[in-house]
C-alpha cells in the first residue's frame, strides 16, 4: 500500500498554477449507457480510504465525467469521495488554485476539479487539476482531447491518472470486462457472451443465447481479440472474435471436446484442452501456422492453462495425483511440477499480469475461496470465501481480482477483491453473470503526466 503521498501533510507556498496543456487521442467506443455505481464494502474497517473532493467538472458532460471518476475511485476502496453538498468553495476554475483552507476545513485530502472546453474542430478538451490542500501544492494536472461522445473513456483515463498519482501503482479503469451474462432459472438458463466497461456501463451482447458460453478471454496484447467456448447440444467449439470487425472464426474442428482456451501473452498462440475418450489434456496451437502441439499426456484431467506474462511458462490444473492441484510447466510442456501445497481442490489458475502471482479457486470444507500464491506456490493467501465462487481474473494492474460468486439457488454475480482482501465488492456490472475476464488497458497511459512540472507542484 502506497497511499502515503497525501497522508503526510506538509505546508508549501501558495502559488499561481500555470495550466499544463497536453493531449493524447483516445479511441471511439459507441454503446448505449446502462448501469449504476455500487457501494463498496470495506471489510473489517482496517483500510482508511483517502478523502477526496471531486468538484463537478464545468462544461458540457462535465458533471458526468466527474461522477464517473468519483464512482471509479470509490469502488477501488482506496478513496472516499466527499459529498459535494459539503463543499465551501464554489466557482473553482482551471485558471485558479483551490482556496486551501476551505478544503482542509471539510477534511479533503485531495481536491480534483476540471472543465470540458469545446474546440474549433468539434472535439473537446477535458482538463483537470488535482491539489493537496494540506501541503498546498499541485499533485498533477493533465488535459485530454477527444470527441465529446468519448466522455466515459476520458473519465476512466482521468481516474487512472489520479489512482496512479495517489497510490504509486498503475491504474486499471480504462479497461473492459468480457463475461457470460445469465438469465432464467437454474433449469432454463440462457447465457450470452457480454462485454461492458470495467464499471459495468455500456454492456453489449455478443452471442444470441442459444449456446452455453464458457471461458471468454482477451488477448493480452490486443484487447480487441477475444476467444471463448460455445457448447451446443452435440458440439463444443472455440471461437476467435475480433470486437472491432465482428469477425468470428472457429479455431477448427478437433477429434474430441474442446474447452478452456487462453491466448499466449503475444496473442500468437492459443493453449486449450481437448477431451478424448474421457481424458482431458492441454494442447497449444500456433495461430499463424495452425500447428497443434500436445503439452500433457498423463491420464488425469489437465486443463485451465494460463500463460505467464513473459510467455515462458504455463500454470494449469491437474488431478493426476488424485485431488485437483496447480502445476507449472514450460510453454513447450516440459518440466511439469506441482506448485500448490495445501489440502483441498485447486482449480482455475490465472497468472497475474505482474508475473509474480497466481490466483486460483480453492474448495474445501464445503466452501469455495479466491486466493493468490507466489508463482512458485509459496505464500498462499485466501482473499475471499463464500458458498460458491470461481474463476479469478486479474485487473490490468494486478491489484484487483474479479470473480463470479454464486448464492444458493444459482444467482451468480461478478465481484471484485483487492490483493489485501479488504475491499470486497460487487463489480461494476450489477446484473447476473459469470466467468469474467478483465481486459488489458485499452491503451497505454500518457507518457508525460506532468508530475513536478509547475512551480507549485508537490515535491513528491
Amino acid at each position, binding site marked *: 500500500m502506497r497511499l502515503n503521498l497525501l497522508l503526510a501533510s506538509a505546508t508549501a507556498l501558495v502559488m499561481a498554477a500555470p495550466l499544463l496543456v497536453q493531449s493524447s487521442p483516445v479511441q471511439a467506443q459507441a454503446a448505449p449507457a446502462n448501469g449504476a455505481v455500487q457501494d463498496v464494502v470495506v471489510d473489517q474497517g482496517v483500510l482508511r480510504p483517502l478523502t477526496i473532493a471531486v468538484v463537478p467538472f464545468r462544461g458540457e458532460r462535465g458533471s458526468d465525467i466527474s461522477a464517473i471518476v468519483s464512482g471509479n475511485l470509490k469502488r477501488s476502496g482506496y478513496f472516499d469521495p466527499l459529498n459535494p453538498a459539503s463543499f465551501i468553495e464554489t466557482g473553482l476554475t482551471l485558471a485558479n488554485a483551490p482556496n486551501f483552507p476551505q478544503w482542509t476545513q471539510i477534511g479533503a485530502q485531495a481536491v480534483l476539479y476540471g472543465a470540458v472546453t469545446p474546440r474549433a474542430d468539434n472535439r473537446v478538451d477535458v482538463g483537470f487539476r488535482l491539489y493537496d490542500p494540506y501541503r498546498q501544492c499541485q499533485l498533477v494536472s493533465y488535459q485530454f482531447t477527444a470527441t465529446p461522445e468519448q466522455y466515459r473513456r476520458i473519465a476512466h483515463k482521468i481516474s487512472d491518472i489520479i489512482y496512479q498519482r495517489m497510490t504509486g501503482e498503475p491504474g486499471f479503469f480504462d479497461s473492459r470486462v468480457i463475461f457470460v451474462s445469465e438469465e432464467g432459472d*437454474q433449469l432454463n438458463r440462457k447465457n450470452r457472451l457480454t462485454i461492458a466497461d470495467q464499471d459495468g456501463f455500456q454492456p453489449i451482447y455478443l452471442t444470441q443465447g442459444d449456446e452455453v458460453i464458457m471461458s471468454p478471454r482477451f488477448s493480452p496484447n490486443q484487447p480487441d481479440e477475444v476467444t471463448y467456448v460455445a457448447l451446443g447440444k452435440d458440439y463444443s467449439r472455440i471461437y476467435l472474435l475480433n470486437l472491432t470487425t465482428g469477425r468470428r472464426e472457429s479455431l477448427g474442428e478437433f477429434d474430441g471436446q474442446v474447452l478452456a482456451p487462453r491466448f499466449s501473452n503475444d496473442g500468437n498462440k492459443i493453449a486449450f484442452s481437448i477431451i478424448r475418450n*474421457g481424458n*482431458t489434456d492441454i494442447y497449444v496451437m500456433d495461430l499463424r501456422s495452425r500447428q497443434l502441439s500436445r503439452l500433457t499426456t498423463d491420464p488425469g484431467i489437465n486443463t485451465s492453462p494460463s500463460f505467464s506474462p513473459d510467455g515462458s511458462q504455463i500454470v494449469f490444473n491437474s488431478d493426476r495425483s488424485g485431488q485437483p492441484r496447480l502445476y507449472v510447466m514450460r510453454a513447450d510442456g516440459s518440466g511439469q511440477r506441482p506448485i500448490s501445497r495445501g489440502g483441498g481442490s485447486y482449480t482455475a489458475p490465472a497468472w497475474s499480469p505482474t508475473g509474480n502471482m497466481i490466483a486460483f479457486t480453492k474448495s474445501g470444507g464445503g466452501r469455495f475461496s479466491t486466493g493468490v500464491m507466489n508463482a512458485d506456490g509459496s505464500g498462499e493467501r485466501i482473499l475471499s470465501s463464500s*458458498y460458491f465462487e470461481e474463476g479469478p481474473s486479474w485487473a490490468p494492474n494486478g491489484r484487483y481480482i474479479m470473480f463470479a460468486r454464486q448464492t444458493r439457488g444459482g444467482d451468480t454475480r461478478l465481484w471484485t477483491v483487492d490483493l489485501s482482501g479488504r475491499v470486497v465488492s460487487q463489480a461494476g456490472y450489477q446484473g447476473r453473470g459469470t466467468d469474467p475476464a478483465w481486459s488489458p488497458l485499452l491503451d497505454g497511459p500518457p507518457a508525460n503526466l506532468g508530475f513536478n512540472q509547475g512551480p507549485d507542484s508537490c515535491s513528491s
Partner: protein
Amino acid sequence: MKTSRIITVAMVGCAVAAMAACTRKPPVDTGIPGPATPVPTQPSYPTAPTGPIQGGNVGSAVPGSEQDFVVNIGDRIYFDLDSIEVRPEARPRLDAQAQWLQRYPAVTIRIEGNADERGTREYNLALGARRAEAVRTYLIGRGIPANRITTISYGKERPIAEGSNEDAWARNRNAHTAIVSGAPR
C-alpha cells in the same frame, strides 16, 4: 392407422379453431352486468351425462421408440460425489440399455456427462466427460459398437434438478443416454 388419421384430422381442426380464436378480439370487461340469467325457482341438479365410457392404455410407448427407451429402460444413471465409477445399482439399467440397443441396431446414441454445481466450470466439464466415458466403456463392454456412441460433457451447465442441496446435487451428477438417430420419438 384409421384411428391415427382421425386424430390428425381432429388436430388440424383444432389448429384451425385455435387460429380463428387468435383473430377474435378478447372480451372487454365493461363492468356493466350482461343480460340477467333466469333465476331458478327450483333447486337444479346436474343431469347425468350419457354415452359409453371406454378404456385403454395411456399412450403406451411404441417398442423401439425414444419414448420406449426413456420410459421402459431409463436414460440416466447417477454418480457419487467426485466419482466416475458406475455404481452397482446403476448396472442393471445400463445392461438394459445395452440389450435395447442390441435389439434396435440402427439406433445411435450420445452419452451426456453432467456434474453438480459444486465445482468450477472447466474442471466440471472434464469431470462430466469422464462420467460419459464410463458409460460408453460399459456399453461397449456389453457389445455395443463404439461407432454407435458419441459422448459430450455439459459439466454443470445443464442441471436437471433445481436447488442447492444434496438431493439436487445427487441428481445432477449423472450420465444421460440420448438417442441421436434410428428410433422414432
